[in-house]
């Protein structure tokens, strides 16, 4: 579904990612883990198009999208739920969700998408007319994910969905990720929360200093001694 070949990207001429390579297979939950500054969000921004790459290829469903504008990538099915949610606070929950299906592929199916998202997140259904800014952190994250699902993604990218949220909420979110993946959606998850992420993911990549240093299935990595020492404090 997604292949990164020799991807170089950074800010102001300084590369953060140097020749990054990884693969996400259709139908799986893939995860990128690493500490702060490893380049996880940079990689995500390069994939969604918010950050133009300095070099390399981003192949999505057989097509190199590295030169495409972000809104064109959304139309193809690459949908990112950004770090920090970035919902529209002054718009209502309903308006936020409606805007999720703004792209031309998702718009005709808005009503059925809305029904599906509200079935997944009943709490959003209770707050449809409320302004986004009045929601709690966990509810905003649900809204952000719901908004992303409204765009009818082929690949859903979640950038640090657990950030700043209570453990019980994080558990709910991870459960929902498992659910939508079981229904066929490919998910790329970026997280600092290594333990829970590796339990959830089918395949994971450890990013350090802009390159992949370890990869394997979630279970394999949980047993890896280097990872256990560096990230799990064991």
């Amino acid at each position: 579904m997604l292949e990164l070949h020799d991807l170089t990207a950074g800010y102001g001429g300084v590369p953060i990612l140097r020749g990054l390579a990884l693969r996400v297979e259709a139908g799986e939950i893939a995860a990128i883990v690493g500490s702060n500054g490893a380049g996880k969000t940079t990689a995500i921004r390069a994939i969604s198009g918010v950050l133009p790459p300095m070099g390399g290829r981003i192949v999505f469903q057989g097509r190199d999208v590295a030169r495409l504008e972000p809104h064109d990538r959304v139309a193809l099915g690459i949908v990112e739920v950004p770090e920090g949610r970035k919902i529209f606070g002054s718009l209502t929950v309903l308006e936020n969700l409606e805007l999720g299906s703004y792209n031309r592929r998702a718009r005709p199916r808005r009503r059925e998408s809305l029904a599906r998202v509200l079935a997944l997140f009943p709490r959003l259904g209770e707050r449809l007319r409320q302004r986004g800014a009045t929601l709690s952190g966990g509810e905003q994250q649900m809204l952000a994910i719901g908004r992303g699902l409204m765009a009818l993604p082929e690949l859903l990218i979640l950038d640090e969905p657990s950030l700043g949220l209570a453990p019980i909420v994080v558990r709910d979110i991870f459960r929902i990720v498992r659910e939508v993946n079981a229904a066929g959606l490919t998910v790329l998850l970026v997280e600092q929360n290594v333990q829970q992420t590796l339990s959830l993911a089918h395949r994971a990549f450890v990013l350090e200093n802009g390159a992949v240093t370890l990869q394997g299935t979630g279970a394999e990595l949980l047993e890896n001694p280097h990872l256990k020492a560096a990230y799990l404090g064991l």
Partner: protein
Amino acid sequence: MATFLLQSVVNGLLTGALYGLVAVGLTVIFGVMKVINFAHGSLMMLAMYASFWAYSLLHMDPYATLVISVPLLFVLGALMQKFLIAPLLDAPEHNQLLLTLGVALFLENGALLAFKADPRVMQSAYLGVNFYVGDLTLKLVHLIAFGASAAITGLLYLLLNRTDLGKAIRAAAEERTGAILMGIDVKRVFWISFGIGSACVAAAGTLIAPFFPIDPHVGSLFVIIAFVVVVLGGMGSFLGAFAGGLIVGVGESVGAMFLSGSLKQMVTYVLFVLILLFRPSGLFGKRAG
């Protein structure tokens, strides 16, 4: 005396709606792009001239010239955003400000060169028509200006709140990255918004042209009033801009009863200072922090 006061208030409300329309157009531009558009008044001046020439050379009805001035200024505004302002979008705000100021000077002096400084006046048949309600005199040209301004503002409100495009505009204004990730072509939203803001000010220009002398510097007068109204009403607030326009209109009109000539503008500025003293974010503005 009471009638005189009431007449002033009514006149003020009627013309205030025009100020409101100009301010609403400016709010769309500032609210969406955070651009301080000093050329806003010059665009209005161009619209007034467009209407004037269409009226005197093509013998069009003064209000029918809306079909010329509005699309023309929409396109001009959109082009200005796409080619002049967009490249500076991430630059410091004072750069954008200087650019729009430069455009204003360019347009003003270009008009001076092309049209000369003598004020133009539309002597249309609408000018002398009055309606009488009790002791009050209501000029037809004022009534049309009020009605059309209110209608256009209402339409704009519906656009921003009921259509996908409008919601996309509001979303892009508030959270640009979030909007981009939803597949909204934010660059396109920006030039459309600028076009809409310019179209509003063009409509205001066409509506005021039948009863206001047109000269190349008329833009500077209105751009200052527009900014006062926008800040007074609360920056970024649509409703505030329109309400602010009405308040300034009434203030000016009542002020003209007691103060001579251009001193009446002092009422506007005194009101401005007073309102900001008690509500620093403007009447309907969001509190900072």
